[in-house]
C-alpha cells in the first residue's frame, strides 16, 4: 500500500485520482481477506467506482494541476505525528489481531451469530444486523445519502436550457463516429449490468449484497449510458424531477415500514408485525427496506452525477457566450 505515499507527492490530480481508486480497490481486496465480503463489495463499487468517477468529473471543471505549495508543512507534520503517536500508544493495549478472545467477539456479537437464524431467519448475518437489529442506523444512512443528494442539488442545480432535436441528432452522429465500438458493446452490456443489479438487490439475504450495492450498480449503468450517448439524450430518457421523487420515495418507503409497525402497536421498525409469522415478517420487512435503500441510493447517485455533468455543460455554455470577459469581483 505504497499508493498512499505516492498520492502525497504527486501534483497531477488525474494521476492522484487514479491512485486513490487503486487504493480503494486494494482496501477492498484487503476486506475480502478479512472475511468482510459485503464491505469489500461496497468499497469496490463506491471507492473505486463512483467516487473516482465523481472526482474525474470534478477535475474537468476545476483543472487538474495542483500548484506547488508554499505552505509550511512543519506544523501539519507535528499535528499528524502527535495524533499518530497517540494512536500507536493506544494500540499497545489492544487485543491481538485475529484473537478469538477479544471483547468484540465475546459480547453482543455472539447473539447475532448464534441466534439471528432463529430470530430473523436470514443466512447473511451482515444483512440481518444491518436491516433488522440495527435497522435504524441504516435508516439514518439512507437519510444521509438523501441529504447529500439534496445538498448537491441545492448547490449545483441549473435551469436546463431547451435543446432542439436537431442538436441531439448532430451530437449523436459525431459520437457515433467516435465511440462506435464502445457504444455497441456497452449497449449489449447494459441489460446485464441492470440484471446483475437486481440480482444483488434481492439476493442480499443469502449472499453478499443488498440495496446499497445494487443501487450503486444500477446507477453506474445509467451513468455509463449518459457518458456514451451524451447527457442530453440521457436527460431525455430520465426525467430529473422524477428521479428526485424516486429518491424521496425510497426514504419514505423505509420510513413507512417503520410507521406501519408503530400503527400496529409495536416499536418503530419492528418488522414482525408485517406478517402473522414473525420470521416471515422479518423477511418481508428486510426485502422492502432494502428496496427503499436501493431506490434512494440509485437515484441519488444519478442525481449527483447529472448535477455535476449538468454544471459542466452549463459552464461550457457560459464560456462560449462570454469569452474573455472575466467578472469574478464581489
Amino acid at each position, binding site marked *: 500500500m505504497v499508493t498512499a505515499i505516492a498520492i502525497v507527492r504527486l501534483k497531477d490530480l488525474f494521476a492522484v485520482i487514479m491512485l486513490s481508486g487503486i487504493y480503494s480497490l486494494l482496501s477492498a481486496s484487503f476486506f475480502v481477506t478479512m472475511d468482510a465480503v459485503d464491505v469489500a463489495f461496497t468499497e469496490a463499487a463506491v471507492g473505486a467506482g463512483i467516487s473516482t468517477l465523481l472526482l474525474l468529473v470534478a477535475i474537468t471543471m476545476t483543472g487538474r494541476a495542483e500548484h506547488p505549495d508554499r505552505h509550511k508543512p512543519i506544523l501539519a507534520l507535528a499535528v499528524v505525528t502527535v495524533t499518530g503517536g497517540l494512536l500507536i500508544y493506544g494500540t499497545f493495549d489492544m487485543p491481538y489481531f485475529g484473537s478469538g478472545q477479544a*471483547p468484540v467477539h465475546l459480547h453482543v456479537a455472539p447473539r447475532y451469530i448464534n441466534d439471528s437464524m432463529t430470530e430473523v431467519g436470514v443466512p447473511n448475518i451482515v444483512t440481518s444486523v444491518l436491516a*433488522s437489529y440495527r435497522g435504524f442506523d441504516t435508516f439514518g444512512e439512507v437519510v444521509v445519502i438523501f441529504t447529500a443528494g439534496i445538498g448537491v442539488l*441545492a448547490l449545483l442545480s441549473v435551469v436546463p436550457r431547451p435543446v432542439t432535436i436537431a442538436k441531439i441528432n448532430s451530437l449523436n452522429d459525431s459520437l457515433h463516429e467516435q465511440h462506435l465500438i464502445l457504444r455497441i458493446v456497452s449497449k449489449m452490456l447494459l441489460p446485464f449490468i441492470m440484471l446483475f443489479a437486481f440480482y444483488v438487490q434481492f439476493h442480499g439475504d443469502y449472499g453478499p449484497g443488498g440495496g446499497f450495492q445494487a443501487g450503486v450498480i444500477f446507477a453506474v449503468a445509467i451513468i455509463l449510458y449518459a457518458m456514451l450517448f451524451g447527457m442530453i439524450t440521457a436527460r431525455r430518457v430520465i426525467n430529473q424531477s422524477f428521479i428526485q421523487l424516486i429518491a424521496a420515495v425510497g426514504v*419514505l418507503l423505509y420510513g413507512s415500514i417503520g410507521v406501519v409497525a408503530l400503527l400496529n402497536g409495536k416499536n418503530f421498525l419492528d418488522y414482525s408485525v408485517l406478517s402473522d409469522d414473525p420470521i416471515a415478517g422479518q423477511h418481508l420487512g428486510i426485502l422492502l427496506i432494502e428496496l427503499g435503500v436501493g431506490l434512494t441510493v440509485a437515484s441519488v447517485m444519478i442525481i449527483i452525477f447529472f448535477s455535476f455533468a449538468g454544471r459542466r455543460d452549463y459552464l461550457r455554455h457560459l464560456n462560449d457566450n462570454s469569452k474573455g470577459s472575466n467578472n469574478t469581483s464581489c
Partner: protein
Amino acid sequence: MLAHLPVLQVIVPLLAAPLCLFLTRSRLVWVFALAVSALAFLISCLLLQQVMSSGTIIYELGGWEAPWGIEYRIDPLNALLLLIITGISTIVLLAAHTSIQQEIPEERHTFFYILYLLSLAGMLGIVATGDAFNVFVFLEISSLSGYALIALGKDRRALWAAYQYLIMGTIGATFILIGIGLMYQMTGTLNMEDLSKRLPEVEHTRTVFTAYAFIIVGICLKLALFPLHLWLPNAYAYAPSIVTAFFAATATKVAIYLLIRFTFSVFGLTFSFTALPLQILFLTLGLLGIFAASTAAIYQKNVKHLFAYSSIAQIGYMIVGFSVSTTTGLMATLLHLFNHALMKSALFLALAAVVYRIGSVQLSQFHGLGRQMPFTMAAIVIGGLSLIGVPLTVGFVSKWYLIMAVIENGWWPVAVLILLGSLLAVVYVWRLVEAAYFKPPLPGRDTIKEAPLSLLIPVWILVIANIYFGIDTRLSVQVTQAASMSLFGVSP
C-alpha cells in the same frame, strides 16, 4: 401513541423532509415545515413533562433490546436539549419565509426547507439516541445538511466558509468514529449505558485513554472550542441569516451535549477527570476563549462576525462551568446553554431583519438605525444586555449560577476573570449601540422602514422569552437541576 413519543420526535421531521419534494409551491412548503417543527416542539414538551414526572424513558428501536439493537434513552438532559432545539427551530422558521425571499433564489426554497428539516432531525437524533454509533450517523445528517445550508448564502465567501466547515467537521466526525471504534474494541458494545458498565473494567488501558482523547478532540472541533474555532466566524457570517440564527442557537449546543454525555455518562466522572488533566485544560481553554474571542469581537466590522466571536466567548463560559465539575457548575453550564440559545437566536434573527431592510450587516451601515428601525434595534439592545449579563435578563441568571459554582470551589480569581470578560461584552455591545443611536443616518437612507411584522413577531417572541426566563427562573432552574443531578447520579 404516547409510548412512541421518543421516536416520533425524530422521525416526524425526518420523514417530513422528503415529503416536501412533493409540494410544489414555496409557500406551501414553508407552512408544512413550520407545522412539522411545531409538532416536534409539542412532542418535546410532552416528553419533558413525562421525564420530569416519571423518570428516564427507554425506547427500543425495531423491538430489539439494548446492546443488540439501538435504543433511545430520554432523561432530563436530553429532554431539555430537545425542547431548546425544537422551540428555537419553530420560532426561527416563523421568520424564514420573509427572510429567505431576499437571500436565496426562488427555485432553491424547497431545497432550503428540506435541508433545514433534515438538519433539525439530525440534531434531534443525536440528542435522543443512546447508542454511540447512531450518534455518528445522525451527526453526519445534521452536518451534511448544515454545510449545504451555509453554502446557500449569497456571498461567495459562504462557499469557502462551508468548504472549510466541511473539512473541519469531517475530521471531527472521523476522530469521533476512531474513538467509538476503539471503545468498541475494548468492550464489544456500542450502547452508551452498556459502555458505562463495561468501561470501568478496562479503563486503565491505554486504548481507552486514546479513545477518550479522540472523542473529546473530535467533539471540540464541532464545538468550536478555542483554539479549534477557526471555521465558525465565517460560517456564521456568510450563511443565510435564518441559518445563522438556527445554528448559533442549536448546533454548538448539541456538541456541548455530546461532551457532557460522553464525559459524564459514558466514561464516568472519575475516569474523565483523572485520565487527562481535563479540569485545568478546559478551565484554561475556556477562559482563554472568553478573552481572545471577546477581544476579537470588539474589532469586528461585520456585526454577524461580532456576534459569532461572542458565541465563541459564550462557549468559553459553558466550558468553564463544565470544568468546575460539580452539580452547580454543570447546572450553570446547562442554564447558560438554554439562555444563550435564547439570546443568540434573538440577536441573529434581529440581524436577519436588518439584512432584509438594508442588505448589509457592516457596522458602518448601522448608523442611525436606532430611529429608523426602532423595534429591531431595541431587540438587539436587549439581546446585547442579556449577553453582558444585566439583571432581569437570562444572561444574568446563568452568570450568577456560574460565579456561584466557581466561588463554591474557592476559585476566586476565576470569578474575577469571568466578571472582566463581561466587561469586554459591554464594550462590543456599546459599539453597536453607539453606531445605531448616536450617529446620524447615512445620506440617502431616509426611506428605510421598520422590518415587516412577519420578522418582528418572531424576534420579539424571543426577546420576551429572554426577559421572562430572566425573571421567572423556575422552569429552567428546575430542569437543569434535575439534569445535572441525574448526571451525577444523585436523585433530586
